[in-house]
């Protein structure tokens, strides 16, 4: 994979660079930030995460499974306990709820993994250690012929280091 990697020590610098790249409609831009910064969110203005769909589906499946397993297994071999109904939905709500939470959470996590594309095995690409430390970064996946132009743009916004990877 080829591209340009820029390192910014300051938050407003990287935000300005993002806005500029956006304005120039540069595709395949990845921004690195050591922690969530709302300025960056604002600059990128990304669509809402689709993780919530996973959550909805998982939680619905979970609550269904919780009720189903308790009702089905009660009916499967009907035995009376304490004169209560064989399958009684009130206590089974607890099973429904717990499965709702468990499956809902796990599918949310799965949704995050899938969408954020982790786990990944290789991190030495288009990445710099400083991004987990204190610096911000921008990685633009592109062909070498565009390197110079992008370097200029990035440096103009305050990148302290710009390097092409090929």
């Amino acid at each position, binding site marked *: 994979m080829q591209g340009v990697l820029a390192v910014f*020590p*300051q*938050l*407003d*610098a990287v935000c300005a660079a993002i806005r500029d790249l956006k304005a120039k409609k540069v595709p395949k831009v*990845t*921004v*690195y*930030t*050591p*922690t*969530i*910064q*709302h*300025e960056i*969110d*604002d600059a*990128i203005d*990304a669509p*809402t*995460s689709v*993780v*919530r769909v996973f959550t909805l589906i998982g*939680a619905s499946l979970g609550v269904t499974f919780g009720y189903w397993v*308790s009702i089905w*297994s*009660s009916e*499967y*071999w009907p035995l009376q*306990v*304490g004169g*209560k109904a064989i399958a009684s939905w009130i*206590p*089974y709500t*607890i*099973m429904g*709820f*717990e499965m709702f*939470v*468990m499956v809902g*959470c796990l599918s*949310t*996590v799965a*949704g*995050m*993994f899938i*969408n*954020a*594309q*982790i*786990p*990944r*095995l290789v*991190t030495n690409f288009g*990445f710099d250690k400083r*991004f*987990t*430390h*204190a610096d911000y970064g921008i990685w633009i996946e592109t062909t070498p012929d565009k390197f110079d132009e992008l370097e200029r743009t990035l440096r103009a916004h*305050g990148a302290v280091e710009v390097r092409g990877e090929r």
Partner: protein
Amino acid sequence: MATTAKPVVGKIKRPNIPAAGIQVPAVSTFEQVDNEILATLKPSSKWFMGLGVAVFAMLIGASAWAYQIYWGLGNAGYVPPVMWGVYIITFVFWVGIGHAGTLISAILYLFRAGFRTTIYRASEAMTVFAVMTAGLFPIIHIGRPWKFFWLIPYPNWRLLYPQFKSPLLWDVFAISTYLTISTTFLYLGLIPDFAVMRDRETNPVRKRIFAMLSLGWKNTDREWRHFAKMYMFLAAFSTPLVLSVHSVVSFDFAMALTPGWHTTIFPPYFVGGAIFSGFAMVWTILIPIRKWWHLEHYVTLNHLDATAKVVLFTSLMVGSGYLSEFFIAWFSGVAPEQEYFWNRVFGQWWWAAWILLICNMILPLSLFSQKLRRNPVWLFILSIFINIGMWYERFVIVVPSLSHEFEPWQWTHYTPSWIDMCFLVGSFGWFFMWFLLFIKQMPVIAIAEVKEIVPPKMLHGHGGHH
């Protein structure tokens, strides 16, 4: 971490957590965060000693378990009809401890309570290890622990499934869900920090391990975007979960018709008590940590003050719970219930009842004083009293009720035995073993989240407002 609202273009706000007030003014740069927090990971001889003590205590519990599995439960202090004793008490105690962690990491997150940021990691770890400890006790206390898997609904040749109307089965579901979710929550929060450690580590083996644990996290915008969403959902799920888990545990008692157990106040009263004891345990853990590792500028007196208010509030909650139990017993006019409560406070169990009333109701009233709320030494001492008091609260619920039931012919007395104490000691050993291992392998303060409340470097002066 992570905002839920999409920021309004043009009007950049740093809205949520930092705005809530409690900050870390002594921390000014991201570099400082990395350096100071990662510096805590260097094992010291003190730490090894502590770990040694914990492992030894854990081994006491482990050998007691082997002994008990071989001989049966008879060596424990049980005196029928007191069929539940120290094991269940300790189980409820540890489940309760766990609640503070989830409260801090999830509920306070949703409430935008800023003081959670620096203490949430330790609390969440405490939750996971407390639930791991608690989860052992139902297995320890059953007569045939090797048949424990029968409580799990899976297709089998016996054609039998568990009985879903049993509160114990609800426990199985609630505790396993709780353990899964809090472990997930802890681990996912750690991922960005693992990435930090991976990139700062020089030892190739450790680097490799952190690389695996970080799942290749790179701090990209895409990652953060989904991560924030997921984090919010996890917190949203954990909030009802944390309330439900101790409610379900309280159903173990409330669903039975034993006098002293059969009461509708139990779920809120248990949850309140759980948070109360959990915060006390947070103090027990964090106050020494902040002192020894010089993290006072992360966990500031403001933080302690905020937690002390929670403790005071929950103490008043459980206190009103105790009082209303007595009131209802009197008001109900049910003779066995009245006799039981009289016996609890003025009869054979007066000492246990008063330990709990003093530790849980009276001593925490000192927190009305701001001076004491900001006095770490007092908070530490108080946390020990509260831990003892909360253990006794469960003792008072479990044992006196069973010893003084409907059938006067079977009234009895109960004293724990040596093996019960081995398990109690072992549970602390097990808990602290994990906790000590944790704090030297993983950052006890969330690096990425603290960075969020540290003012970012700006090219053109300080942007935003904080």
